[in-house]
């Protein structure tokens, strides 16, 4: 495959997928016969004594084009799941763009296709508000059949699951969820990522293999027009980066001494951008794995070298004064300043955080900015902190509770949402079109689908992206880009692929998303909060020179402080959880 290089281990993945597929099929069959004995739905299949699943997928839609070697969801005819009228009570979040869940276009479509009627309960407010309400419901025993898109953490799922409150859907997935089984074959890590330490699965995942998201924490932007004007090139090393910022400052391209060579703001941590030139820094909570041992990055000597470097930049006035205090609005004021932008660069996830994105205007200002590649430090360290694991597979997109009388049916309902057309309607709405032969996608290969450009201003059409879904990398990159289209998705993908992907750290170095039991979780939360506070505060102090990173005393004091907070117990906790995860 021509773009194998862009996909972490996918060739290995498809190899394993084949092998796993066989084992999964046999194992699934075995589980099914056990399951159908108990449940009333699978009775038909059990009769013949063969281990074939009681459900089958609808035929593939012939009109849909797939690129060669496509790995991802496939469009099929959805079959009605039930003939009798069945109603499930599901709790969701309120969202003004989703609108009334009852009248939402996707709700109607899914009900029409599956025959399953849902009675919605909507919870308003912020995510924290929603969790407050959900906890009150659970404590009061006022429990629905399922929660959709409620952000339970892995630890919460494990806690409620172990209490028997949430249904273990593992067996049901093996028996009924054929689309999801396919997705789990494409992404073999999925099962490991969604199962609790007791090997049970308490929620349906949302698989969303967002390529550019994997490099999100280390991404910063530089104005290439400015770089050209000062006669330099996109920096590759920490020294070159400093030269560029110095040149920005000297040339004062914003005018009137207002130039800010490099800015940041309080919503995007800045340490991963710089520190990965000194050591691997995945960002909060700075956990790394070295030869199977969990460790932290923030008390290493290399971290100190990084502090010296950023401190130097700040002392020269190359980093904005309010790098830790500016909020999103303030950063945008710099980026959107009338006439000329004030900032030569910024640390942010994408353009939209520091200026307005106009996708139609070919000369829009955001196009002047390009991703600054990971910098090479004085000792040759150069990592793109690549997120292999926490991006891509999310838990808790659908949680079935013990109240649900027909979990098998609800599982099939969930599985229908992993089908290609349902996915498109689920997050995008009805205004999609299948790509024609020859249409090209974001990755330059045959496109699969396209959206009417204005879809995102529509309301009440889709479910956002909190429901079960399967958006593989090929699927995401299979979105049609018309030659005249000037979306930001394409440059975001290309710059991530060219500049970050080749420099990713080995996957073994990343600390995976582990699950803690209740006591561990409480202890971990406290330690993490304290450590985060101390490390972030000290990072800010070292950067701004309130603490001098060149002073051994200041550095040792800092190391003392973090070790007193409890780096050791914190690491012991995480080590145990890490071993359980791998176990």
């Amino acid at each position, binding site marked *: 495959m021509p773009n194998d290089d862009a996909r972490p281990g996918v060739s290995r993945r498809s190899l394993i997928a084949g092998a796993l597929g066989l084992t999964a099929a046999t194992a699934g069959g075995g589980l099914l016969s056990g399951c159908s004995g108990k449940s009333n739905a699978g009775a038909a299949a059990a009769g013949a004594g063969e281990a074939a699943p009681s459900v089958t997928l609808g035929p593939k839609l012939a009109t849909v084009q797939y690129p060669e070697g496509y790995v991802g969801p496939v469009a099929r005819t959805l079959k009605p799941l039930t003939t009798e009228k069945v109603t499930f009570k599901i*709790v969701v979040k*309120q*969202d*003004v*763009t989703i*609108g*009334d*869940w009852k009248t939402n276009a996707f709700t109607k479509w899914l009900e029409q296709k599956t025959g399953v009627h849902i009675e919605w*309960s*909507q*919870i*308003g*407010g*912020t*995510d924290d*508000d929603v969790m*407050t*309400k959900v906890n*009150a419901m659970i*404590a*009061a025993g*006022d429990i629905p059949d399922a929660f959709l898109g409620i952000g339970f953490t892995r630890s919460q799922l494990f806690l409620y699951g172990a209490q028997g409150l949430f249904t273990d859907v593992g067996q049901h997935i093996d028996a009924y969820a054929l689309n999801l089984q396919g997705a789990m074959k494409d992404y073999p890590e999925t099962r490991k990522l969604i199962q609790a330490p007791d090997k049970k699965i308490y929620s349906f995942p949302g698989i*969303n293999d*967002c390529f*550019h*998201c994997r490099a*999100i*924490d280390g991404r910063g932007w530089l104005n290439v027009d400015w770089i050209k004007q000062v006669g330099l090139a996109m920096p590759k090393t920490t020294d070159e980066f400093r030269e560029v910022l110095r040149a920005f400052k000297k040339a004062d391209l914003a005018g009137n001494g207002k130039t800010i060579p490099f800015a940041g703001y309080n*919503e*995007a941590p800045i340490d991963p951008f710089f520190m990965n030139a000194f050591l691997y820094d995945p960002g909060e909570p700075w956990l790394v794995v070295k030869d199977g041992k969990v460790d932290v990055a923030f008390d290493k000597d290399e971290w100190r070298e990084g502090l010296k470097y950023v401190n130097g930049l700040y002392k020269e006035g190359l980093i904005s004064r309010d790098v830790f205090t500016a909020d*999103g*609005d303030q950063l*945008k*004021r710099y980026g*959107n*300043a*009338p006439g000329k932008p004030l900032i030569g660069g910024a640390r942010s*996830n*994408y353009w*939209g*955080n520091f200026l*307005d*994105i106009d996708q139609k205007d070919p000369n829009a200002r955001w196009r002047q900015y390009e991703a600054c590649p990971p910098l090479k430090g004085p000792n040759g360290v150069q990592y793109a902190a690549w*997120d292999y694991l*926490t*991006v891509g597979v*999310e838990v808790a997109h659908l949680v079935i509770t013990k109240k649900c009388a027909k979990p098998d049916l609800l599982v099939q309902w969930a599985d229908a949402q992993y089908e290609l057309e349902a996915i498109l309607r689920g*997050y995008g709405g009805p205004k999609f079109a299948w790509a024609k032969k020859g249409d090209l996608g974001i990755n330059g290969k045959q496109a699969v689908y396209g959206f009417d450009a204005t879809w*995102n*201003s529509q*309301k009440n059409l889709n479910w*956002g*992206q909190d429901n079960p879904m399967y958006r593989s990398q090929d699927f995401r990159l299979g979105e049609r880009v018309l030659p005249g289209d000037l979306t*930001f*998705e394409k440059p*975001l993908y290309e710059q991530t692929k060219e500049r970050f992907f080749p420099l990713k750290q080995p996957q073994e170095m990343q600390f995976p998303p582990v699950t803690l039991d209740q006591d561990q979780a409480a202890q971990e939360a406290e330690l993490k909060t304290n450590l985060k506070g101390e490390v972030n505060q000290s990072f800010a102090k070292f950067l701004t020179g309130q603490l001098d990173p060149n002073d051994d005393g200041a550095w040792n004091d800092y190391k003392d402080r973090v070790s007193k907070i409890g780096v050791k117990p914190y690491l012991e906790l995480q080590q145990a959880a890490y071993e359980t995860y791998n176990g």
Partner: protein
Amino acid sequence: MSAGTLPPDEQRLAVGASIQDTRGDKIAMACIYTALGLFCLAILYPLVYVLSASVSNTRKVSAGEVWLWPVGFTLDAYRAIFDYKAIVSSFGNSVYYAVAGALVATVLTLLAAYPLSRKGLPGKGLIMGAFVFTMMFNGGLIPTYLVVDQLGLLNTRWAIILPTAMAVWNVIITRTYFMVTIPEELVEAGKVDGCSDFSFFWRVVLPLSKPIIAVNLLFYAVGQWNSFFNALIYLTNEHLFPLQVVLRQILIQSKVDPSQMQDTSKLLQMQELQQQLKYSLIVIGMIPPLLVYPFVQKHFVKGAMVGSLKG
């Protein structure tokens, strides 16, 4: 009587303050006016800014070009509000809760406060004690939730109006008002003329209590207008949500986490929505209280003085 024979204080009153302010007085007045002026500015400026920003071009706002007056006047932000049914219906709900909640709560408060203000009520201390106890202790979230659930109020408008209807603090203020303005002698005079307790309350007490009624109505209405927690906890039907719950979802839910980045289009949509609606939503959120305040404000001084004597 000539001015010269009066004591200094009265002398000044007699000739009028404008003529003979001493230098010290002038300086003091200047300081007071400056301080109050600054204070006023500090309160007025955000109001004016929000108002201006709400009728300005959103791009000009995010570029920092708006600082006092509107730039690129447009009513798009207000027009956009009508695109979101949830916002419109929640505005109506908030008005409903504020009016209904204020009426129910004020009636309950008056009915509780008046008997407590009379000397002859048996067990008065006990009742008052029970009231005050609830100011300091309560059952907590889950038990209250269970009670509301068992009463069948969950997911109805009553869940917003009833559970926290009467505020003990307001009962105390109102009771004090009655104690001071309706003397025991008045009750006795009524009794002599054959007036029952109820008709006394209806014919004498209420007509004399307009200020405290106004204060109660305003306190409760504003309280309901600003509250979101009960709605959050007790309601799961979008059509019953008050404005504050919807505002929280749009305005506070703004943190950019990587999971949102998985869909930059959705993120962009949320950002644009927020940018466009931020200020117009704040404006419609504050207009109703602003409209009501001027009418009730004059009663405030008379009504809300706890324990101080009034002339």
